[in-house]
Every structure is written in structure tokens, then in C-alpha cells.
């Protein structure tokens, strides 16, 4: 699905060749500061390589329109932004930004449940905890129903139990709907349990690729 050819970005990323398969769960691991977030941002064209090329479904990213790409390949950042207003506002804003049709409250509620966020739609976001904000942002991305999920440590501030339920749920949904997930995680357990492929990044280079069976 994604193919890297001699890609460099500043002195942060330097990847000679890498292929990320589609409709799989791919985990990216590695030390802090290794370039994982930067790698994800290259995939949705939030940044562009200084040299080399990245292909998405065999088309060079350079030739794809960044906005339409970002509506299919959606990134959930490490510290997602929460907008002022209610839970519902925050769910709908994604649909508004990507010019998709609004969804019914029922549909919004289902997305909250998938993200295990136990809040009402008209609750204010002011008092949400860090982990709740992260789950709200996840629900927002789920609602957008992208082809590719780029998840940057989606469960970093969750307890192990919630993390397990959410990831399990996510993986099941993606398998069912033939979606792709590329997920950065610090948890070896998550990586080995759920992924089809683990890519290890260190100092901007791919140091290990491990296919799981």
C-alpha cells in the first residue's frame, strides 16, 4: 500500500526501502525520538520528504492532492486537539472538516462506545481527562471511516484493561471492513498480540521488520 524509495526527511528519517501492506495491522515501535511520529506524518502528507519518493497504492504522494489524501488516510495524533464545545461538537467537527455528511446522534453514540468513552453527547469537553480526550479523538476518527488509520500511540494514556478492549475492538472492525491500520505503540504486548507486521524504527532507520503469523 505504502512504498518508500530512498526517503529522507531532515536528519530525522532515512529509509532506503520499506513496504507497508494494505488491509493489515502494522505496528511501528522504537525508542522515543526515533522518528515514528515523523514517519506517520510523511504518510498523510503533513510533511514531505526532502528526497526520495513515497507511493500510496502505486501513485507517488507528490502527485496526490494532500487534502483528499488526508480524508482517506487519517492520522490520530499523539496529543489530539480537542475543540471548545461539547462532545458532540468534537465528533461532528471531523465530518465538517472533511466535508462528509453529518451523522445521526445514534451513529455518534456508537462511535463513542467503540472508543469506550462513557460520556453524553452534550457533555462539555472542559473537564475531560487526558485519556478521555484521547478516546474522544479516536471516536472522531472512527466516525470518518477512513481507508487507512494512522494511529500515534492511541492508547498511551489508558489503563491496560481499557487499552486491550479498545485495540481488540478496533482490530476486529478493521479486519471486518478490510481497512488498514498503521499504529505506533510503545507496548510490545500490543504489537506482538495484534499486528501482522512489526516495523522497528531507530534513529530514523528501519532496523527490523518482523512478520507475525
Amino acid at each position: 500500500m505504502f512504498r518508500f524509495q530512498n526517503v529522507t526527511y531532515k536528519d530525522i528519517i532515512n529509509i532506503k526501502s520499506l513496504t507497508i501492506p494494505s488491509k493489515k495491522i502494522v505496528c511501528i515501535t522504537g525508542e522515543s525520538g526515533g522518528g515514528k511520529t515523523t514517519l506517520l506524518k510523511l504518510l498523510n502528507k503533513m510533511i514531505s520528504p526532502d528526497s526520495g519518493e513515497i507511493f500510496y497504492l502505486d501513485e507517488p504522494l507528490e502527485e496526490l492532492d494532500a487534502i483528499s489524501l488526508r480524508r482517506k488516510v487519517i492520522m490520530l495524533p499523539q496529543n489530539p486537539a480537542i475543540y471548545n464545545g461539547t462532545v458532540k461538537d468534537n465528533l461532528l467537527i471531523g465530518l465538517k472538516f472533511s466535508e462528509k455528511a453529518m451523522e445521526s446522534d445514534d451513529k455518534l453514540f456508537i462511535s463513542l462506545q467503540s472508543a469506550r468513552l462513557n460520556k453524553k453527547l452534550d457533555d462539555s469537553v472542559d473537564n475531560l481527562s487526558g485519556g478521555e480526550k484521547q478516546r474522544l479523538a479516536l471516536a472522531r476518527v472512527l466516525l470518518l471511516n477512513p481507508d487507512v488509520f494512522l494511529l500515534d500511540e492511541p492508547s498511551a494514556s489508558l489503563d491496560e484493561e481499557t487499552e486491550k478492549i479498545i485495540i481488540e475492538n478496533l482490530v476486529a472492525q478493521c479486519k471486518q471492513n478490510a481497512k488498514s491500520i498503521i499504529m505506533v505503540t510503545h507496548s510490545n504486548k500490543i504489537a506482538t498480540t495484534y499486528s501482522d507486521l512489526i516495523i522497528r524504527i531507530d534513529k530514523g532507520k528501519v532496523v527490523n521488520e518482523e512478520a507475525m503469523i
Partner: protein
Amino acid sequence: MNTNVIELHIWQLVAAYVFILILLAIVKIRGIKREKEILISSVRMTLQLILTGYILMYLFENESWLLTLLVLLVMEIFAINNIYRRVNVRISNQLKKIIALSMVTGTVTCLLYFIIIVIGLRPWFSPRYFIPISGMLIGNSMTGISLGVSRLVNDINNQKHLVESSLMLGATPKIASKEIVDNAFDSAILPTINSMVGMGIVFLPGMMTGQILSGVSPVTAIEYQIAIMLGILGSVALTVILFLQLGYKTFFNKKSQLVFESTESKQ
């Protein structure tokens, strides 16, 4: 002009400097180290106004479209440079060009409309009207745009994270920065709008006061004041809108990416 205007004699003007002496005495006693600034600014004011007086006298006696336009040009250049100095943030060269372009386009458009349609000035370049009116439009637009620039640049820098998140959710740069642009517009025109609210009650605007003091009937003065206030509002709004519409784009590149100036915060 009316004949019963009290002409100020030199000694009367000198008497007004008593206020400066009082101020100097106060800061001296309280030990506030501002004597130098107060002296310099009052001397500057005096010299600048005297100089302007003679220049205006010369211009009024030698009416010419060329000279009038020259004065307009000088005022624009002065105002634009003043904006660059006043804005308390670093601005790119591209943004500087946009500031200059919006100032000139916005003020000149409103000025022409005002001169030709609103007051029907004949000849259109008559310096007695043209110069003070353009001065007021340019001065107020300068203040407005300075506020708009500071707010826009500050907000984009402080809210990079939010803008970036919006882009990641598929927003176009325009939508991702809409709130910031709207806020900048707001803060740029609010002072002008607020000054309209207090006008005539809280304070008498400078132009009107000047006209009344020099013998014009208050009703005429007020008519001019109303017209000029509307003109100022139009000019401020137009220059600021032009600036913002072109300005926010300089923070994004053709690939709809935020352009960082080496300070992207580590997540």
C-alpha cells in the same frame, strides 16, 4: 472660514507649554526617569507640526494633482513602515509585501470613493480636503492592520497544534485557520467600532473639535465627522480583510502543509 476665530499669539502658545513644565516637575520629584522622553517628544511634536503647517500652506497655495499624489505616496510609505515597526512579532518578507499591498489598495479604493462619490470634491485633488481625509483613512487603517497582523501571527504560532490537527482531519487551510482569521479581523476593527460608540458622548473627535474651534458650524462639522467615520470604518475593514485573505495563505504551502519556521514543537 469664520472671522471671529481667536488667532493664537505666540506668547499664548508658549503659555500652553506650562503643562509640559508641570509634568517635568512631577516626574523630577517622583524620580521617574522620563524627562528626556518628555522633552524630546514635545520638541518633536512642535517641530513636526510647524513643518507640516508650512508644507500644507505651500500645498494649499499651489494646488496640483502631482503634489497631492506625492503627499499620498509619502503618507502610505510612512504608514507601511510604521506597521512593520509596530508589529511585535517577526514577519516574513512575503507578509510584508501583503501588508503594503493591502494598505495601498484598501485605503486608495476607499479614498477615491469618498472623494468622488461621497463629497464630490472638485477638483478631486484639492489638497485642503484630499490630504487630511487621506491622512485619517491611512492612519486608522494603519492601526487596524497592525492589530490584525499581530493577532494573526501570534495565534497561528500559538495554535499550530490546533491548525495541524484540523488539517489531519481533512480540513483545507482556509477552514483550518478560519477561527484565527475571524478573531484577527475582530480585534483589528473593534477599536474603530468602539470609538464610534463613544463618539459625541464620551469624547468629541479630533477632526470635529478642530473644525468647531476654527469656526465651522457644529452641524457641518458633525456631517463631516459622520461621513469620515464611515469612511474610516470602510477603509479599516477593507485593508484588514485584504490583508487577512492573502496573509493566512503564507502560513501554508501548495501541499496544504503548515510552513514551520524551525520551531515545530516536539510532540
